[in-house]
């Protein structure tokens, strides 16, 4: 039995950046089959959009709400009939008559293995949801043995604002895209090297103060695994005082300029420990500048007390 339901697509999910005024023809609905159910989704939507419209959970790591999908992690793969290999749901667009399965043996195997391969080589402890997926898919990163090669390396601390802990890096390209043409256009970092040795780097690995970095912190905002982290957060984690359950988030407006970006202040024990901006915000799309992101010390300058 197949059931037909008209899917509700949250269009902001497809591209949250300021949309151009639609001048073309309205988008047609495409009928596809998802796990045995016939559904209609707008033309141009991805399989992931379709899954979300039906409430089908699909794990993602390198998918970034505000960035073009690079489909590098392969965690979101699904099985599409008549396709020799599995397809990344985050970037494959729906086609009429597509028959998609999100929970087959092959899909579960690939997701389990991607989690295991990452888990055995990268520190995923600061990546939300991963532990749950590991359990769900039965991933056991320890079975690759003690000698399994990892990306473990010392944390790079070369400035007072944020640290780069590439032991946690899954090479999702999001920081590079955010630093480059998709958001900041600073082009301070790149993927360098090849294969397992591929890594995020400045030119010749120079420290950030010598690079083109402008400390906007937009790379931190998109990092899915905590490889890029406020120095405050890093220091508190080192001291064991970082406690997200004890934190409050308060939205306010940045005081520095007339753009008026929305800031979300993350506070713990009445101290600002981190600043973000909502990803779905029409002005910032989660991005800030150095002042909004890091210029909060004046708020808690206790010398004045």
């Amino acid at each position, binding site marked *: 039995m197949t059931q037909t339901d008209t899917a509700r697509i949250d269009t902001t999910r497809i591209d949250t950046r300021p949309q151009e005024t639609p001048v073309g023809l309205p988008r047609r609905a495409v009928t596809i089959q998802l796990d045995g159910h016939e559904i209609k989704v707008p033309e141009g939507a991805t399989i992931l959009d379709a899954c979300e419209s039906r409430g089908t959970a699909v794990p993602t790591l390198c998918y970034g709400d505000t960035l073009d999908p*690079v489909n590098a992690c392969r965690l979101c793969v699904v099985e599409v009939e008549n396709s020799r290999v599995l397809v990344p749901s985050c970037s494959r667009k729906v086609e009429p008559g597509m028959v998609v399965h999100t929970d087959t043996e*092959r899909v579960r195997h*690939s997701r389990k293995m991607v989690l295991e391969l990452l888990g055995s080589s990268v520190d995923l402890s600061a990546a939300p949801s991963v532990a749950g997926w590991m359990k769900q898919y039965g991933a056991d990163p320890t079975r690759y043995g003690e000698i399994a090669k990892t990306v473990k390396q010392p944390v790079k601390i070369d400035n007072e604002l944020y640290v780069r802990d590439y032991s946690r890096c899954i090479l999702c390209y999001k920081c590079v895209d955010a630093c480059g043409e998709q958001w900041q256009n600073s082009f301070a970092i790149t993927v360098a090297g090849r294969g397992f040795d591929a890594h995020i780097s400045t030119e010749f690995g120079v420290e950030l103060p010598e690079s083109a970095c402008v400390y906007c912190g937009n790379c931190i905002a998109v990092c899915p695994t905590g490889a890029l982290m406020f120095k405050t957060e890093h220091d508190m984690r080192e001291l064991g005082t970082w406690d997200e359950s004890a934190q409050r988030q308060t939205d306010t407006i940045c005081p520095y300029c007339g753009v008026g970006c929305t800031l979300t202040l993350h506070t713990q024990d009445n101290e600002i420990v981190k600043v973000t901006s909502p990803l779905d915000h029409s002005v910032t799309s989660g991005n800030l500048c150095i002042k909004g992101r890091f210029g909060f010390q004046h708020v808690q300058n206790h010398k004045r007390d």
Partner: protein
Amino acid sequence: MDLRFPEAEPTVAEVQALDAVLGVSVVAQGWEREHGGAHRASALRPRLLGALHALQDRVGWISPGGLGELSRRLDVPPADAYGVASFYAMFALEQRPTTVVHVCADLACQTLGAGALLDSVEATCGIPNESGGTASWHPSPCLGLCERGPAVLVTVAGDPPREAVIAPATPDDVAVALRTGPNALAEQAAVVAAVPQAASADSAANLVLLKRVGVVDPLSVDDYRAHGGYQALRAAVAMGPANVIREVTESNLVGRGGAAFPAGRKWAAVAGQPVRTHYLVCNADESEPGTFKDRVIIEGDPFSVIEAMTICAYATGCEIGYVYLRGEYPRAREHLQHAIQAARERGLLGPDVMGFGFAFDIEIVRGAGAYICGEETAIFNSIEGYRGEPRSKPPFPVEVGLFGKPTVVNNVETLVNVLPIMLIGGPAFASIGTTGSTGTKVFCVSGSVERAGVYEVPFGVTLRELIDLAGGVPKGRSLKAVLMGGAAGSFVRADEIDFPLTLEGARAANTTLGSGVVMVLDDSVDMAVFLRRIAAFFRDESCGQCVPCRVGTVRQEEALVRLTIGPRQEHDMVLLREVGQVMRDASICGLGQTAWSAIESAIDRLGVLT
């Protein structure tokens, strides 16, 4: 936003090297056409790869000063340029001696004593990649000289830079090269030595694609014309673009690079795209271990490649063609560059080809040591000056290819097949070979055979007949297995070699023809060492973009080392299969998808590791 460039100053030599290369290349034409220099990246970005070669050739490495100067001139972010340079094995980002000896450590050479050569070189010349002194050496992936291994490539940076091939090489040769550079070495073997069938008039008479190799002077356009050259283009223009595509379609020609996609369908798809410009990319990045056919064709008959590309361009409306030639082929580059220049001078390339009223020109893009760049979309990124990482498909190249435009990507051998199709017609071509596999196929026979080389036979001869044609395994040895299709292919046992060499025959025999690699292994080959080399090859050549391949190739090698050397874990075989499965199912491109094929077949068919 203005870019920020590093402060390191370039040397005079680096400035001269960049002066010489920037401003003369036409590679930038494509990007400049599409974006007018006002897009996300510099209009000059496609010159990046050539500029990196210029620095590497001149001073032997890419220095911070050189990279900074290059970034300034091309208006490319220095981090981006660094990311690109670090992608390619042939670019050094730390200072190293100007003379570098690349000793092939790959599969075919292994069957010919590369292991002993490497050991001996290490004993006499010291450890690899040593930075002191005037020369260093390092083990290299397949150099495409499989018919006369063990092979060595020597590169000497300077003005002019020099490159030389030593094959077969002895430890003494390597020592001489390290001491005095390649000048002291003997001239390399004639191209025709790689075509054993050319030795006798009887077998040479059956050659179609290789008929001119060793017969014509590869440096003379007149000689090419005297041997039937440019008749195919005349025939093509006489019948018109639509009929050219019809003939190619009716010939049932399929791609010879490994994927076997129908060439006619690809051409028709590009020809039918209303979007302009259309591009043609000739894929000459043959890096599959054991493949060297395209090298022989380009070295021995470079004008045939130019003529075939011109026909394709005429039929599909391409104005610019790129030959992406692997960086390890100095003689092929020299011959092809000369041929392109000669063709331009004669009006065979240029704004009005042969007076027929269409424009077409060809540029060589020189690879820099990356197997992945032979992948049909990675090749676009590499030409455009980005890291040679594959793109996801769809969209396919016929719609969104090079510079985002409709693009024909064909292998060298696929293209030269178009010449006989134009001359005898599609249906006549289709009558050669079998119904499912038409025409002739150039096989690269290497390993333990009497006469290694490229063999052109009609589809349908059996693998046994082909091995016999190459003289069989040397006396006193016995056949153990044949690796079909290279590292990305699969093994067949000695008792399985009676299947016909056709696409359908290979499929039925549960193997692949791939790019035409037939690597013959005798009983002296240590399969454990051989399989570890396959695993190491994929680990080295993975671009690192997707998780299944980036980490999977490492885990595959680790498991294989444990299984063959120890200590063996109880579940290692299960692990190997599970890693293999995710690489096959979930990798972005064919590299990861086939990285487990050969090892799987060694376990399942040859009973290795059990």
